[in-house]
């Protein structure tokens, strides 16, 4: 008999104890989120609201501002280059997300069983998390430099060594590889934690029914992993869409501005061009895009999972 975990405590409470307990339940709900929300509102929400206000003004990082209504938004929406940057973002995500998640999940399946070698592998996969994206970018720039190690190896095999960072398509590939190298191992740990949380009973039932490994994966593992898979995909999307450090350090937006992302543009507008109003407006528009995508992902997954 499978546990149906979708009842909230309050449903059970209400069924058995009536509305007074339900009110207590509500109150405890608010109280539990209160500390978190307090800090969030002060240090995250408030700055965002201030940014929203700033999107209707002109002026620099320092100094006076003037209200200009929707002017900044119009400027952004009518400028072709921002759509190019958005396209870059989508290209990056399409290339990096599925591959990264697939690798992370695959490796997690391998690492699920604790063995004598577990300490070694779990430590190794932890290593990319130890350094900053900037440091990782420097390594990748070197790896893919014209006379660097990767081309060195390619030449030995006899393949023509591409000029990675100086051509748009290959530059994008380098950035994707960088993002995957640096980012995907983190998800391994989430998946391993989730996988190890699946009690063996489920697998035993599967074995009794004569399922082979593939069927086990599809019918037992994946459905039970839905929560964590959704988590990883949503978070990965939100983070990947805000790609910046990798591009900044490897190609600085080049060659000829072709690898730039939206956040890169926001950074430039705010801190280089000193046009903070435009930067704020672009951020707000981008927020909408990410919000839409996330909402879509959550919706597509409604099924069993309660919110």
């Amino acid at each position, binding site marked *: 008999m499978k546990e149906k975990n979708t009842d909230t*405590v309050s449903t059970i409470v209400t069924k058995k104890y009536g509305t007074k307990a339900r009110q207590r339940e509500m109150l405890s709900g608010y109280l539990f989120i209160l500390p978190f929300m307090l800090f*969030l509102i002060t240090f995250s929400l408030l700055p965002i609201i*201030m940014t929203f206000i*700033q999107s209707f003004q002109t002026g620099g990082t320092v100094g006076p501002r003037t209200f200009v209504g929707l002017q900044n938004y119009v400027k952004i929406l009518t400028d072709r280059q921002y759509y190019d940057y958005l396209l870059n973002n989508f290209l990056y995500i399409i290339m990096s997300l599925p591959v990264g998640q697939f690798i992370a999940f695959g490796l997690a399946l*391998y690492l699920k069983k604790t063995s004598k070698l577990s300490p070694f592998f779990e430590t190794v996969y932890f290593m990319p998390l130890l*350094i900053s994206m900037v440091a990782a970018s420097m390594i990748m720039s070197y790896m893919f430099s014209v006379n660097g190690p990767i081309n060195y190896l390619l030449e030995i095999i006899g393949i023509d060594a591409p000029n990675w960072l100086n051509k748009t398509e290959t530059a994008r590939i380098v950035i994707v590889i960088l993002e995957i190298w640096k980012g995907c191992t983190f998800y391994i740990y989430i998946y391993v*934690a989730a996988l190890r949380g699946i009690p063996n009973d489920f697998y035993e039932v599967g074995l009794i029914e004569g399922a082979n490994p593939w069927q086990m994966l599809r019918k037992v593992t994946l459905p039970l992993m839905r929560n964590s898979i959704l988590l990883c995909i949503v978070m990965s999307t939100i983070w990947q869409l805000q790609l910046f450090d990798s591009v900044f350090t490897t190609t600085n937006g080049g060659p000829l501005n072709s690898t730039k992302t939206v956040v890169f543009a926001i950074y430039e507008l705010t801190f280089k061009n000193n046009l903070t109003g435009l930067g704020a407006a672009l951020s707000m528009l981008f927020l909408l895009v990410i*919000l839409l995508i996330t909402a879509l992902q959550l919706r597509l997954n409604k099924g069993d999972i309660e919110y």
Partner: protein
Amino acid sequence: MKKGITLGKVIKALILLITSLIIILPFWLFLMTSLRDKTVLFETPPKLWVENPTLDNYAELLLSKTSAFPLWFVNSLIVSVTTTVLTLILASLAAYAFAKKTFPGRNAIFMLCMATMMVPSTVTLLPAFMIVRQFHMVDSLWGMIIPCVTNVFGVFLLKQFMSTIPSSLIESARIDGASELRVFVKIIVPVSRSAMGVLAINTFMNQWNSLLWPLIMANTETVKTLPVGIAGLKGQALVPWNLIMAATMLSFIPVLIVFIFARKSFIEGMTAGAVKG
């Protein structure tokens, strides 16, 4: 069960090995640079070894009287540990509520929290600074800690794990007269240990490597953290990469060691005790 060397096992071994190499190689290169007596970052043509390896760079960072490295290290440690502890507390409390309690506006509030992750910190940097200033936390380690204790990803992560805890478990504890807090501490927290471990690692590493915010906060040399201190080593004409790589190595080797020891309790073995029966 046959204990043979199957094709599957060979493939598995190869994949694990190759991926490990891909990860270790860059770190090896960093290590080599830190042992180099020249300031170049990497050699061309590519080499896996360094001629005349030297420990001078490490000596300079650790032993020289003018080196502020130990100070940076301690500051980073304080900031990272405190942030992690506070983050875990706040996030787990909130995640429990989102996962297991109903109250009006729950979904909307959660989406609002999610939305805060979708605005790049580039633009919120200056407004956040002004707010922190209002609290007189600029130029202090607190200023680096407090604004960073809200981790929405953490709430999302714990929420996903907590929602798999059967409500009947909670309910039976309540029947036994346990208070809300007791239920939380005695049941929810232990069961979410592996997820909390992941969150702890994530938070700690983010703070440890965080450059921009501590940079903005540090107005005196005494509150600089490791990334800020290391960034200050980059002069203009001559960037001493060997020194910087040595500092980078020194900054993550201790963390790696801690991870190796803490790994067992966080990641290994947690079959969620509650789900039995």
